[in-house]
């Protein structure tokens, strides 16, 4: 059987305490009472109620103070204030300070029962929400550890042995054989990167990045991104035109995660571009913002898909047959850019191409 919900009533008037006790007799609640704030707070500690009724006007410590202390002890305890007719405005005050509801004196048994029931329901909901949140957190951690242990570890072991094999056979293999080995390594590397970006979304709090921001020139993370994308671009015969000047004003950010942003966006552009086309990267200062544009002549994104491409695990319908992607890179990019107080947007026309725009605030000097 479920434990009885516990109610504590703190009021200096015996008549209130008695009538409340009377009203709740035979109900499914357990009741405790106290005649002043000090005793009431001691009971909060000891009795651990779900719901506390507090009279606002009591000798000794005030109802407001009791209210505050109750929430210091346990913020999930639901508090309802009891007020005389004349003090409706203080009831409003009390609610601003965290009371859930108020009970105006005098009250009928029904009014009291109803407010008690609502308060208890509120407490149950709060506890449920907390336990759900905890469960979700746990699931997230578990999922992250499963992904890293069960998927990443074996792939790393495979790749490490391929590295060793390649290294040992360096002088033995002919060009074609080396090509095969290279293809295996590249594909495994891509899988590892994909797992990393999943893990990133699942287990890393991107907002924590802010603690490590330094002034950086945007050309650096872009150059880093292009370096790691060079083999993909070469494989797809895409020319990348980098027109970003090294002399732009610095932005405040984390170089590694900004590189990740550009790897994801430019990588996306390369993936959805037909062979032999170009991807052009430009950067322009407009007032206090720096806008980086990445323009491709790829298959484009339909109007219907456009609003969703920065959501996780979403991949446009028109793209599914022509390219493989993980639909998460752009979501990660958006999160990182937003952590930099910037914004990311996209313009596109089916069959003509897509332009991604990343806007970042310039650092004030």
């Amino acid at each position, binding site marked *: 059987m479920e434990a009885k919900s516990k109610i504590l009533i703190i009021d200096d008037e015996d008549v209130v305490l008695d009538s409340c006790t009377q009203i709740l007799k035979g109900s499914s609640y357990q009741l405790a009472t106290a005649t002043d704030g000090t005793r009431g707070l001691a009971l909060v500690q000891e009795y651990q109620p779900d719901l506390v009724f507090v009279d606002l006007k009591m000798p000794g410590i005030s109802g407001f103070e009791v209210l505050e202390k109750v929430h210091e002890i346990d913020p999930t305890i639901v508090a309802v204030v009891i007020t005389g007719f004349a003090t409706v405005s203080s009831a409003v005050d009390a609610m601003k300070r965290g009371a859930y509801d108020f009970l105006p004196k005098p009250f009928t048994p029904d009014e009291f029962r109803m407010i008690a029931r609502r308060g208890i329901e509120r407490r149950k909901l709060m506890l449920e929400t907390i336990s759900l949140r905890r469960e979700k957190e746990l699931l997230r951690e578990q999922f992250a*550890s499963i992904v*890293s242990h069960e998927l990443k570890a074996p792939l790393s072991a495979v*790749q490490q*042995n391929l*590295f*060793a094999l390649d290294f*040992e056979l360096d002088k033995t293999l002919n060009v074609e054989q080396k090509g095969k080995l290279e293809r295996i390594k590249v594909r495994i590397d891509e899988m*590892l990167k994909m797992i990393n970006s999943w*893990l990133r979304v699942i287990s*890393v709090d991107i907002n924590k990045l802010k603690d490590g921001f330094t002034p950086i020139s945007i050309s650096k993370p872009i150059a880093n991104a292009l370096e790691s994308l060079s083999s993909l671009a070469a494989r797809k015969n895409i020319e990348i035109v980098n027109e970003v000047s090294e002399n732009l004003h610095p932005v405040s950010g984390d170089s590694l995660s900004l590189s990740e942003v550009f790897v994801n966006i430019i990588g996306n552009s390369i993936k959805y571009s037909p062979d032999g086309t170009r991807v052009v990267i430009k950067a322009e200062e407009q007032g206090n913002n720096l806008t980086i544009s990445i323009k491709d002549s790829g298959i484009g994104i339909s109007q219907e898909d456009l609003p969703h491409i920065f959501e996780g695990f979403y991949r446009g319908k028109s793209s599914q047959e022509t390219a493989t992607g993980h639909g998460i890179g752009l979501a990660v990019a958006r999160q990182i850019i937003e952590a930099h107080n910037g914004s990311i947007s996209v313009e596109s026309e089916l069959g003509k191409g897509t332009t991604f725009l990343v806007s970042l605030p310039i650092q004030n000097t």
Partner: protein
Amino acid sequence: MTKKILMIDDDPDFVSGIQAILATGDYEVDVAYNPKDGLRALQSKKYDLLLLDIMMGRGAEGIMIARKLRKDPKLREMPVLIITGMREQIAFLFPGEPIHPRFVDVDELVEKPVEPKLLLDKVSTLIQIAEAKKAGK
């Protein structure tokens, strides 16, 4: 002179991949497949370098070794190359410290899998730095 290396990592297949690469250099490699055996090996023999995995067993058991090394005045002179599956976890395990942990005098971190040239380069550099530090004392 042949350098002695201890590798502590719980994935035998991964270890083989590393061993094959180290075999091309002048190294003698001992392996421990769990932190317990690793500690035992460190106490019974003197090594020129430790290759340490962090995510072992039920969690970050490698970190226990890292912490023990940090406290031991003799062992903390030995250079350590951390080979880890996940960079973020390191930052998480040493809260407030940069990703490069610096928990002993000479250490460095690389991610799994490790390119052969990078591995050989890091291993020989770390051993040299540690020896130079010792000679300078």
